[in-house]
């Protein structure tokens, strides 16, 4: 199974697959797992997806898709009184940042790519923390943000395996 018929005939498959996968990850982020303290440190599956697809298939996960998915994620998961619009902002900036540095990463080995992701997560988490604090005029508790960042970086290899598999199955190598 190389390329799915949809990908071959219409050419829309390649765009659809990363977009739908990212959308699915947005929904999965909201599913309770019953693990103590999981809610507060749910890893950012969206950032993993943005990083992977922007590096390896930059055409197939567009700014518009990220904007809509980010907005949907915010509407689905934000609590009353929190800011809506922060996630699309972060996702757009993440794609822009990865796209501008893509050349340095795309042909490198996995450890290098992984450390690039760690840097992205660190910056994104910091920006998000600063914006969340500014927008509520209160210093946000940083522990869970820190753990969330660590968990996101830690789970990235597993996510990469999944993304690479999806990529092979639907679009060929």
């Amino acid at each position, binding site marked *: 199974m190389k390329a799915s018929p949809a990908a071959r005939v219409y050419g829309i498959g390649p765009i659809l697959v990363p977009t739908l996968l990212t959308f699915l990850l947005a929904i999965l982020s909201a599913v309770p797992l019953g693990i103590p303290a999981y809610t507060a440190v749910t890893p950012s599956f969206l950032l993993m997806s943005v990083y992977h697809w922007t590096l390896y298939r930059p055409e197939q996960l567009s700014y518009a898709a990220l904007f809509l998915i980010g907005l949907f994620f915010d509407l689905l998961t934000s609590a*009353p009184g929190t800011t809506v619009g922060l996630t699309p902002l972060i996702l757009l900036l993440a*794609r822009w940042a990865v796209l501008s540095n893509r050349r340095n990463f795309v042909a490198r080995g996995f450890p290098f790519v992984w450390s690039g992701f760690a840097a992205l997560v660190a910056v994104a988490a910091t920006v998000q923390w600063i914006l969340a604090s500014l927008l509520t005029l209160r210093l946000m508790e940083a*522990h869970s943000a820190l753990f969330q960042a660590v968990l996101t970086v830690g789970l990235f290899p597993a996510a990469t395996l999944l993304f690479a598999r999806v990529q092979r199955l639907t679009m060929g190598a």
Partner: protein
Amino acid sequence: MNFLPTHLTRSLAPLKSVLQRFAFSALLVMSVAIIVVGKADLAFVERLRTGTADVMAPVLGVLSQPVTAASLLIGRVREMADVYRENDRLRAENTTLLQWQQVARRLESENHELRGLTQYQPSAATWYVTGRVIGTAGGAYSRSFLIDRGSVDGVTKGQAAASGSGLVGRIAEVGERASRILLLTDLNSRIPVTLQDSHERAILAGDNSDRPMLVYLSPTAKPQIGEQIVTSGDGGVFPPGIPVGVISSVGSQPRVIPMTDLSTIDYVRIVDFGLSGVLPQSAVPAPKAPRKGQSDPATRP
């Protein structure tokens, strides 16, 4: 996109590149605009949020089903492992509870007589409905739940959400089929409470940590570690006496461990006490009688 004819693709190419160049900045501006609008028009954002929750409720309901089942199974297996110890503990607890039952019976009859004497009017009927947690929300910056009960089940804003052991939070947003519970650990949660032993009043203020703070405690109050915290009924949103938590640390900033482990809840009970309190009348419609068959049979008078 090669599903368009080639000549069309070619003539659209410049437009496409322009669009792509501006997409980033345009969408960035739009995100900022949404943040600003969201801050200014809370009702609009709330409508969008409840709309999304309504649409996604069936999907999340299905997705969270195996998780709920798995956590029940894990619970069972764990229970099996120490069934003997658990049995001993329950026997001891049963003895204690039987004594309490005696006390409760005596108090009930005494209470009944006293109510008769004072011609006490019982407060509006209390009813409840049980909902399943279908979505966790908030990530690092807020604490809330999505449950699979909405306005069709009689859920309204401001109702208390409790687990078997105590208060969990309150209903903050209601959709048709789903509602959002603001947990008492959330940054925006403020609950008037009483320290059960000293009868001191305070506000339980969440700060997104697992242990909400006791604020506005009078300077002369001496909170003790292990002291029970219950709702005070001030503000008229919750009735007095719902268990909330236990004081876990004292000092300059006393903190409270909630009665319930908020991260592992599967089911919550939404309780309406017929109180609308400080919330504006528009936000809290008069409590409706639940539709037939939707409230639990144990509805108390």
